[in-house]
């Protein structure tokens, strides 16, 4: 068992990272493409969750670090006061980015 006093990982390269993980993320990009195509083919009004997904996808390409953290923050309820009453038990996955409703009332 190799030991390291500070438990650090071996240094990795971008190439090694792509060797290990490119194929599965290639598949995930295709899955998202197919999902967005599916939404296109469906009828009815636009859905705020899909809109929030598109905004998140744009963050993937903005050239800044910590995309995962920033996307999670984007989708988060940014209010700070408890809501009056819980009317459901589940969660949706994102807030409505087009809404400025203060849900703390």
């Amino acid at each position, binding site marked *: 068992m*190799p030991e*390291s006093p500070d438990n650090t990982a071996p240094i*990795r390269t971008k190439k090694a990272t792509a060797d290990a993980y490119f194929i599965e993320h290639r598949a995930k990009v295709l899955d998202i493409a197919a999902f967005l195509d599916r939404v296109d083919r469906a009828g009815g009004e636009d859905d705020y969750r899909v809109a929030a997904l598109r905004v998140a996808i744009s963050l993937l390409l903005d050239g800044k670090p910590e995309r995962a953290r920033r996307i999670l923050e984007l989708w988060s309820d940014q209010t*700070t006061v*408890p*809501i*009056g*009453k*819980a009317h459901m038990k589940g*969660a949706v996955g994102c807030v409505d980015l087009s809404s400025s409703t203060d849900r703390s009332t």
Partner: protein
Amino acid sequence: MYIDPHVHMVSRTTDDYVRMARAGCVAITEPAFWAGYDRSSVGGFFDYFRLLTDFEPRRAAQFGIRHHTWLCINSKESEDVGLSREVLGIIPQFLDAPNVLGIGEIGLNKNSRNELLILEEHIALAAKYQQMILIHTPHLEDKLKGTILIMDAIKAHGGISAGRVLIDHVEEHTVKPVLDRGYWCGMTLYPDTKCTPQRAVDIIEMYGNERIWMNSAGDWGHSDPLAVPKAQMEMRRRGHFESLVHKITFENPRSFLSQSAKFSAQPLTPTAADVTR
């Protein structure tokens, strides 16, 4: 060898115990959880706590796994303040059971006023009985807000040491605030709605390996009681040292949990099949 410090075995099969034991699981802790529906009376909780403190440790022992537990009423049921207080009232009689480590998983779900009220009363109970706390943070879009509200509530009480609180289900946007305030944190490996093994290992690489653990939170929904050994494989795949794998999946949970003298991860010879049922 690993510890799964958050798994709801009441909802899992004996086959899961077998697979966990084979994968190297030596100890688990099972926080009290929501049943998938709201229990209708304090009697239901009484029986659930008996299961967690009596039946389930005996079931786990048959597979050589040491079982520990945490007691509470879940935040999903906190809108019923009356019932919640009844449940808070019966918890003390279970706190001396040999496998009870503390109060949990308490926290917030939709970040409502009543959830916060009942959380505060759980915190006060933990302080009164000098119990450790295992915190559930809300799901998805509610997590960030709830994590801050929970930490504020613990701080406001003033009687709880941060080092005796584990804040679970952290993700990339909540791990740093939790660690910065001195708490322990848990990463839950869960399909779709929490961390993948990859993202959990990313978080270790970014935020360090102190005061952090991984768990499966296996339950009655789509979840994986073998998530922790799978994350171990992910660490090895990246070339992390075996010492780090061991630290994250065994030493860290042992360090936190050993603040209770009741916790043990010592080897346990599997008992005979339980014939008392």
